[in-house]
């Protein structure tokens, strides 16, 4: 099976999941007792009827669903009920680059710090360095993003004044430092723990002993022979890690005032802006499916057993 057909098959496999997500979120939002036009002041019935007609809310549910799906296929997520001047697609187009930059930078940082920290801990097993890394890892896993974010802001933004507390100017990377650090920290902790554990396990295998017996230098044994195998659990964790980072970006974008999708989702949830919430959830779900696929590809590339099966 070639890589291309592997990717195609996985993408096709994601279609039912995505369809289910669309159908479920649509049905759930239509079940809601309140509507998007329930304001503090009740609207006059005539205006309300006109609004509902304009958004197609007066039609039977199955027609509404058909219209929504056919719009989706053309990349149209419908109008936002609360941001009257924008369509949901426009809000997504504006927010997606921000959220994506944030999420990918956080994942990259997490791997760049977590993997070396895990290797270091594994190689100095039982000594002070190992204990230090593992203690920090437990802390990083147990402290939630919404506590880390204000703490980092307090230290780096308010006390030390090194970094901006919040805000977003396109092209100013210092705005991204605190949000990315916040998002990355829990993932760093988990990656470090996974790397340490699996590297220790791999180092006990016979093929590593064989590599050592052949007289290869320790560096080669660890980096070329042990590490690719030890990274497999880390790669499997990338899917859940992506989910965690995306969920964390809701907090980070709200707290640091970044104009990403997460902030729109939270705002939409507070405003009961159904189309906005649905659109954001569908895009987030799609992102997670893509990242999982990416993780699977890396996994297959790292694991010689899968690679060989695919070649033959």
């Amino acid at each position, binding site marked *: 099976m070639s890589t291309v057909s592997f990717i195609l098959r996985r993408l096709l496999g994601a279609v039912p999941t995505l369809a289910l997500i669309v159908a479920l979120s649509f049905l*759930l939002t239509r079940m809601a007792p309140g509507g998007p036009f329930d304001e503090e002041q009740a609207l006059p019935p005539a205006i309300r009827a006109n609004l509902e007609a304009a958004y197609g809310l007066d039609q039977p549910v199955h027609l509404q669903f058909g219209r929504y799906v056919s719009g989706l296929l053309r990349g149209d997520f419908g109008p936002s009920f609360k941001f009257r001047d924008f369509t949901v697609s426009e809000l997504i187009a504006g927010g997606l680059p921000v959220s994506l930059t944030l999420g990918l930078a956080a994942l990259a940082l997490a791997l760049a710090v977590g993997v070396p920290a895990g290797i270091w801990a594994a190689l100095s097993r039982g000594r002070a360095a190992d204990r230090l890394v593992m203690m920090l890892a437990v802390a990083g896993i147990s402290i939630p*993003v919404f506590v880390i974010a204000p703490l980092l802001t307090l230290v780096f933004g308010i006390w030390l004044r090194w970094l901006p507390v919040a805000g977003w100017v396109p092209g100013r990377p210092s705005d991204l430092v605190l949000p990315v650090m916040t998002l990355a920290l829990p993932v760093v902790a988990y990656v470090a723990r996974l790397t340490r554990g699996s590297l220790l396990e791999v180092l006990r295998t016979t093929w590593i002993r064989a590599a050592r017996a052949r007289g290869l230098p320790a560096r080669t044994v660890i980096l070329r022979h042990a590490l690719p195998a030890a990274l497999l659990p880390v790669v499997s964790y990338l899917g859940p890690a992506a989910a965690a980072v995306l969920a964390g970006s809701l907090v980070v974008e709200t707290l640091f005032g970044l104009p990403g999708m997460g902030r729109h989702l939270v705002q939409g949830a507070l405003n009961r802006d159904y189309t906005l919430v649905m659109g954001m959830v569908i895009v987030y779900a799609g992102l997670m499916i893509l990242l999982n696929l990416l993780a699977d590809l890396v996994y297959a590339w790292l694991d010689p057993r899968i690679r060989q099966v695919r070649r033959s």
Partner: protein
Amino acid sequence: MKGGLWRDAFGQLRGDGAAMTGLAVLAFLVIAAFAGPAFIGFREDEIDWSNMAAPPFEADGHWLGTDRLGRDLLLRTLLGLRVSLAIALAATLVSLVIGVSWGALAGYLRGRTDALMMRFVDVLYALPQVFFVIILTVVFGRGPLTLLVAIGAFGWLTMARIVRGQALALRERDFVEAAVVGGAGTMRIVARHIVPNLLGPVIVYATLTVPQVILVESFLSFLGIGIQEPLASLGNLIADGASEMETAPWMLAVPAGCLVLVVFAFNFLGDGLRDALDPRDR
């Protein structure tokens, strides 16, 4: 045999320093959350006009200070902890009941029923859970009950998987066969013979679920889509504190510290229970 397992487990747990510390901290926090507020000389919504945003230990009677409305912070944190704990325990119980019955039935029945039931679990697993919980809170309004249902609706999936695996193995055992020969029906066998024998992993996993639920609940309350003011929860107290941290850092520190403590304690206890109740790792 069974008494032996439980006695062994209890013995091992008592020797586990981290787990016992976790248990002690938890016991303290639970008692403080449910009995403590009665001993604090303020009411939940009582505004102390002379002590607004007072730091800890400085204002009379307000041990951990007050918030910007002059409400006692210790009292609000304890009440928030009570709400968080109550939701977490209830949601864990919901997922426990659904997950155990679903998993035990699937594992015991095997075959097509099992495949169908677990396929359903797989499909729900593929959904982005936090986002669906958000949709559910949008649909059913924000509040404790919605949170409970929304979190419980997804919480049972992992439990069902774990229990099914155990049930598949258990159903091959002689005592199950004896029960079948004895004429017991499916429901009776599952309820009386399968479920009691998989309590170990269930207890371990439930203990590790509680902190997860606390985190999800606080996460949503922090964003403003969970528990709403004036009801306190650790999440919305932390959100409050985060907005005031420049001038009143204790408003962040007290609820955040409480949350981290509770999550740590549950995780340590859960890890200890796993070591004690899961003989494979011993």
